């Protein structure tokens, strides 16, 4: 029987295994110790690793990120947690102006090996300042890497790669996926940063879906298959660097593309992904204009009906695919 664990457990398992293997790895963040993190991801880690390696901090996001960068410069491999990714705004100078630039500014003489965990996404009524999906912002920052796993398997393999990477890796984890279960083999494996994955094969339409949208796209594809529309679902897994080749190969087969992500469409990663297709070898294979589905251009609302309507749902994906093949 293959082992099944949750997405949250997969993240914890990766961090714990790496902390056992490498004494320079430690976790730092708000309420990650006895409380186990706002979403329970670090639960139990204090007991195993002690307060020196599972460090509870004051509510000081700038100092958490700046401190992690400094610790990385000083020879450690920190895993810093921002309780909700929305709060990273408080740490933007440390992350963007300091950490991301250090290696280049110093002529390649320094490195900043660290992971910044960023729980994101809407869906449980936390409203505008606790529900954003802002990973797109960081695709504009040279020096950062950005990953966004959708399954427990990918979550573990990408976390191990992120910890071992010698750069700052932003690890966006979707809050509504923490209890999502999936097969995760025992023992060590890694997923290279920058390599996407075909989550479902299909000949008619390519759906490039990110994070929780992978699951909505797969559910939509299941229903569309009954109508005879076969969707290929591509999960980039890494947003920076991005596996444009994998997407191109799929588009060259299907000729039709839908890009789905939760963050707002305007200025979002979907535009970048579309531009990669248009500017690359797959352009000549396109049979229809590329479609993008993202969040509406509003902050995430509180009311559950409004909240649900603010971001792409399964039915929106089905409707968009039908339009693409019409």
């Amino acid at each position, binding site marked *: 029987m293959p082992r099944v664990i949750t997405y949250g457990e997969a993240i914890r398992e990766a961090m714990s295994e790496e902390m056992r293997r490498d004494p*320079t790895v430690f976790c730092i963040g708000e309420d990650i110790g006895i409380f186990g993190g706002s979403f329970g991801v670090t639960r139990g880690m204090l007991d195993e690793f002690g307060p020196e390696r599972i460090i509870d901090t*004051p509510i000081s996001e700038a100092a958490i990120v*700046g401190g992690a960068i*400094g610790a990385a410069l000083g020879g450690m491999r920190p895993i810093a947690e921002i309780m909700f990714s929305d709060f990273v705004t408080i740490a933007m100078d440390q992350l963007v102006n*300091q950490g991301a630039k250090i290696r280049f500014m110093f*002529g*390649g003489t320094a490195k900043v090996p660290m992971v910044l965990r960023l729980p994101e996404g809407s869906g449980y009524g936390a409203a505008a300042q606790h529900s954003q999906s802002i990973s797109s912002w960081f695709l504009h920052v040279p020096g950062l890497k950005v990953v966004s796993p959708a399954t427990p398997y990918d979550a573990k393999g990408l976390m191990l790669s992120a910890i071992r990477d*010698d750069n700052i890796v932003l690890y966006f984890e979707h809050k509504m996926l923490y209890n999502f279960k999936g097969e995760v083999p025992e023992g060590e494996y890694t997923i290279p940063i920058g390599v996407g994955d075909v989550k479902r094969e299909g000949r008619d339409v390519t759906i490039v879906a990110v994070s929780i949208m992978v699951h909505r796209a797969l559910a939509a594809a299941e229903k569309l298959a009954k109508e005879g529309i076969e969707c290929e679902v591509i999960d980039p897994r890494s947003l920076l660097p991005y596996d444009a080749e994998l997407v191109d190969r799929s588009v060259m087969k299907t000729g039709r593309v839908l890009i789905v992500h939760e963050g707002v469409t305007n200025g979002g990663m979907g535009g970048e992904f579309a531009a990669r297709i248009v500017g690359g070898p797959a352009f000549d294979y396109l049979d229809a204009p590329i479609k993008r589905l993202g969040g509406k251009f509003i902050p995430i609302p509180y009311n559950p009906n409004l909240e649900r309507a603010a971001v792409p749902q399964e039915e929106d994906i089905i409707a968009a695919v039908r339009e693409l093949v019409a």
Partner: protein
Amino acid sequence: MKELSREKLIDMLKTMYEIRYFELKADNLFMQGKIHGTMHLSIGQEGVAAGAGAALRPDDYLLNTHRGHGHCIAKGADLNKMMAEFIGKETGYCRGRGGSMHIADVTRNNLGANGIVGGGIGLAMGVGLAIKLQKRDQIVLGIFGDGASNQGIFHEALNMAAIYSLPVVYLCENNQYAMSTPIKKTAKVEHISDRAACYGMPGVTVDGNDILAVYEAVSAAAARARAGDGPTLVEAVTYRWKGHSKNDPGVYRTKEEVEYWMGRDPIKRFRELLIKNGVITEAEADAIDKAAAQAIEDAYTFAVNSPEPSVETIMEGVYA
């Protein structure tokens, strides 16, 4: 002064002269239109950099400010590589990618100047955390200006350094002006070091134009940090003779005020002290002065004859 060797005292004077001549050269190159970009000169503040630098062990860490040439020299930087970086050459510390505001000498644990006011305060705390977690006995010197003490990161980082008892010496180089704005207008406390009380750490204010006072305060703070007793906030009050950066009309200070502070030259003061106490002779002091001036000229010769970075290498160094 008695506990310092003659060699150490001479080295401190030499460092001050090197900083002064580096800054004069930088100013001169700018006036001649020979440099690209901006810079922030620390003429008049040499006592702070040289005093603090002398209090460090070679393997201690440094994070400093945009007005950081002096700190970098006091940390033992190679003048050739510094000058080459200042004029943007491939042989510079950062291969010409950083320039004046980002000179870093990672081999000597100098983790760089910083273009963001207060930007290094949080990083210094993190380096302290790394030292503590690895149970090493180095310390971190985190230098920032009076203006930076009003940034949010100052509060977050000093608080965290204090609660974790990190081996950090925070040194506020208070030159009394954040660009044109006097610190008296932007802080209600009399001394920046008074703010240490908020974090439960010792705070001390010294005359930044007295190199020995800076040396003693930073040494005491470093000893405390090395012993595992946590951070200290040292404030060194000084004054910059030149403008904030290259475009400064100087309208916010009176001529009399600038002249008053120019009369309190930290180099002249230390030189006279060493001569008066028989540590060196007038002739020896002149020789130290001349050698420093020559070292800067030699550095410039090295830098100006160095290659420009090749545009083909522009993408290097973004990722490790």
